[in-house]
């Protein structure tokens, strides 16, 4: 019987299997950031252990960094300390660090791919659940806890049980105004936040194959939001074209050999999955979330369910109280206060271009604070080279420096209590963007449309308007 993409990559990294079903899995690349690494470095010091493989680890600062005045010292003392600890730890253990001020600095899941560190067929981990992003390249990539960060530092391996396999097929053509973000919000709304628990997901089908690498990263990024251990997509010419010529991509004969290997990775026709779901791309409309987890999503024109197969009435009622919304009613045209375009889900150059294209000559509504946060210094540089920053600023957006920003309420960028924010990020949990903040997850297009109208908007209405 044939093997899946996931089987091929996972099995090629099993060092040994131990009684009880656990496997020792070799980790090719390890990304670290300032929040989940200090305790791991402390552990190494306590055990008097070195890093086993210094050439397999890369660090950046992203969660705590301010997105304004990045050339000045970080004003928040605890954030400053955590970033300083990362710098000191990386110096002591000889870890390459793309810290604040470095041209490669940015959100860890944006810089890995854009530097060519992420590539097909590898295993990759980071103390961050959105490590699933890198699966877009056909890598087995997943988030880990800090104890595991320490294990990888010390041994380049993890002890794991192999997850089960799920395939999600999205077939057909997306309608205008519908993006990769809408696909994944749609899938999560069908499966719920726990629907992928215990599984590694392969995304397949013609609608997935038609996506750019940026779109594929958006899809894989949110695998964790349905509880999946990770998500991945078969590498193809789109993957190879993206990686060719990147800073750390293989070159010359190494490139030829690598591509030849990568072409062997896609799932064999006779391979089996434990579970398979198939959706039609044409049925997906621009999506928004209405509740307090990413599974509470719906088409922008739909009404909030009172209960569903996935969400009990009690769960929805609790979410409605927090969101100050009413089950059974739509949220289309709900007045909003903030728009956040950024995060490891949607902060890449293609996302910024899409926003600028949609906005055109229109202006951000006076009632809305709208910020655009590029995912990395390189994305920011590219946006500036294309003049996107000036167009955004002219339209009334703030254009910030790279970082995780308002995705997680950890740095200075927060949404105030009680305010609604249409956000291109990945989590609408209570307090995620700041205590009491009310998050509505959406695509960059839908977020840009909300910035212009000041309301939750069906972006297709703007697309129909003459330029």
């Amino acid at each position, binding site marked *: 019987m044939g093997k899946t993409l996931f089987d091929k990559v996972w099995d090629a990294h099993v060092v040994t299997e131990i009684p*009880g079903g656990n496997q020792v899995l070799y980790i090719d690349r390890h990304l670290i950031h300032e929040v989940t690494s200090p*305790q791991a470095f402390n552990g190494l010091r306590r055990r008097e252990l070195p890093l086993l493989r210094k050439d397999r680890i890369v660090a950046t600062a992203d969660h705590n960094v301010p997105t304004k005045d990045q050339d000045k010292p970080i004003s928040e003392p605890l954030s400053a300390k955590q970033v300083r600890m990362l710098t000191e730890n990386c110096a002591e253990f000889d870890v390459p660090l793309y810290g604040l001020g470095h041209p490669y600095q940015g959100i860890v899941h944006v810089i890995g791919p854009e530097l060519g560190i992420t590539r097909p067929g590898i295993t990759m981990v980071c*103390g961050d659940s959105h490590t699933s992003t890198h699966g877009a390249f056909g890598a087995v990539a997943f988030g880990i806890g800090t104890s595991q960060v320490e294990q990888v530092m010390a041994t380049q391996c993890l002890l794991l049980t192999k997850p089960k396999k799920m395939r999600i097929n999205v077939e057909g053509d997306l309608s205008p105004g519908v993006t990769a973000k809408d696909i994944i919000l749609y899938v999560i709304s069908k499966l719920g936040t726990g629907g992928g628990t215990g599984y590694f997901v392969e995304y397949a089908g013609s609608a997935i194959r038609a996506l750019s690498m940026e779109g594929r990263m958006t899809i894989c990024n949110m695998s964790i939001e349905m509880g999946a251990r990770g998500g991945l997509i078969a590498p193809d010419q789109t993957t190879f074209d993206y990686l060719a010529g990147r800073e750390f991509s293989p070159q010359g004969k190494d490139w030829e050999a690598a591509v030849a290997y990568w072409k062997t990775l896609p799932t064999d026709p006779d391979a089996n999955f434990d579970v398979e779901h198939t959706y039609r791309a044409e049925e997906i409309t621009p999506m928004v979330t209405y509740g307090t987890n990413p*599974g509470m999503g719906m088409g922008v024109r739909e009404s909030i369910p009172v209960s569903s197969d996935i969400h009990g009435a009690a769960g929805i009622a609790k979410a409605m109280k927090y969101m100050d919304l009413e089950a059974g009613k739509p949220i289309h045209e709900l007045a909003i206060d903030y728009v956040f375009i950024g995060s490891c889900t949607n902060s890449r150059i293609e996302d910024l271009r899409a926003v600028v294209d949609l906005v055109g000559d229109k202006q951000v509504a006076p009632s809305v604070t709208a910020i655009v946060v590029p995912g990395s210094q390189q994305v920011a540089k590219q946006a500036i080279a294309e003049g996107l920053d000036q167009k955004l600023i002219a339209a009334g957006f703030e254009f910030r420096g790279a970082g995780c920003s308002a995705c997680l309420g950890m740095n200075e960028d927060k949404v105030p209590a009680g305010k609604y924010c249409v956000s291109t990020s990945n989590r609408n949990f209570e307090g995620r963007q700041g205590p009491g903040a009310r998050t509505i997850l959406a695509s960059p297009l839908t977020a840009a449309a909300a910035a212009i109208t000041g309301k939750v908007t069906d972006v297709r209405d703007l697309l129909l308007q003459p330029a």
Partner: protein
Amino acid sequence: MTPFTTLSTTAVPLPIEDVDTDQIIPARFLKAVTRDGFGENLFRDWRFDKDGQMKEDFVLNNPLYRGEILVAGANFGCGSSREHAAWAIGDYGFRVVVSSYFADIFRGNALNNGILPLVVSPTLLDEIFKTIEADPQARFTVNLEAQTFKNETTGTVSTFDIDSYKKTCLINGYDDIDYLLSQRELIEKFEQERQDFSLV
């Protein structure tokens, strides 16, 4: 890691599904650089209002409910991979979390910190909530060696699954890192023998 063998205690009910790690420990409390002290901010925004006053309707603020077992709704620990969530639960004083299922990363983090994520059937979970509702002093006994969970009020004894390796680790207080370090020779052999396109 503190070894875990048996535990007999009252339990704290949290009958909410999909409790995410942002609720267990909000991101603004992740700035510490050690593993200590997270318990005081466990469920911070459910326990305290914006002025730092206790919310009396939250279960951890109700003196009726105490104990080293937290009983929670399905899909406990979803969302962020932050191990700080497991540290906060352990630091607060819980040794066991009972639910009908756990998010994968949280489950691993709990086990790596000597906290037992104990999976029961949805029916049994419902029965446990009812038992605690009827009597907040109801006791439950966990025996890891026997893999049993006993509701001392109803006398119901159920078994639970845990892989044999993780069970040994918990009982003896071993970390995965101890085992992985012992595999150094095999790891180096693997590195030498395989075809590697990850660094070229």
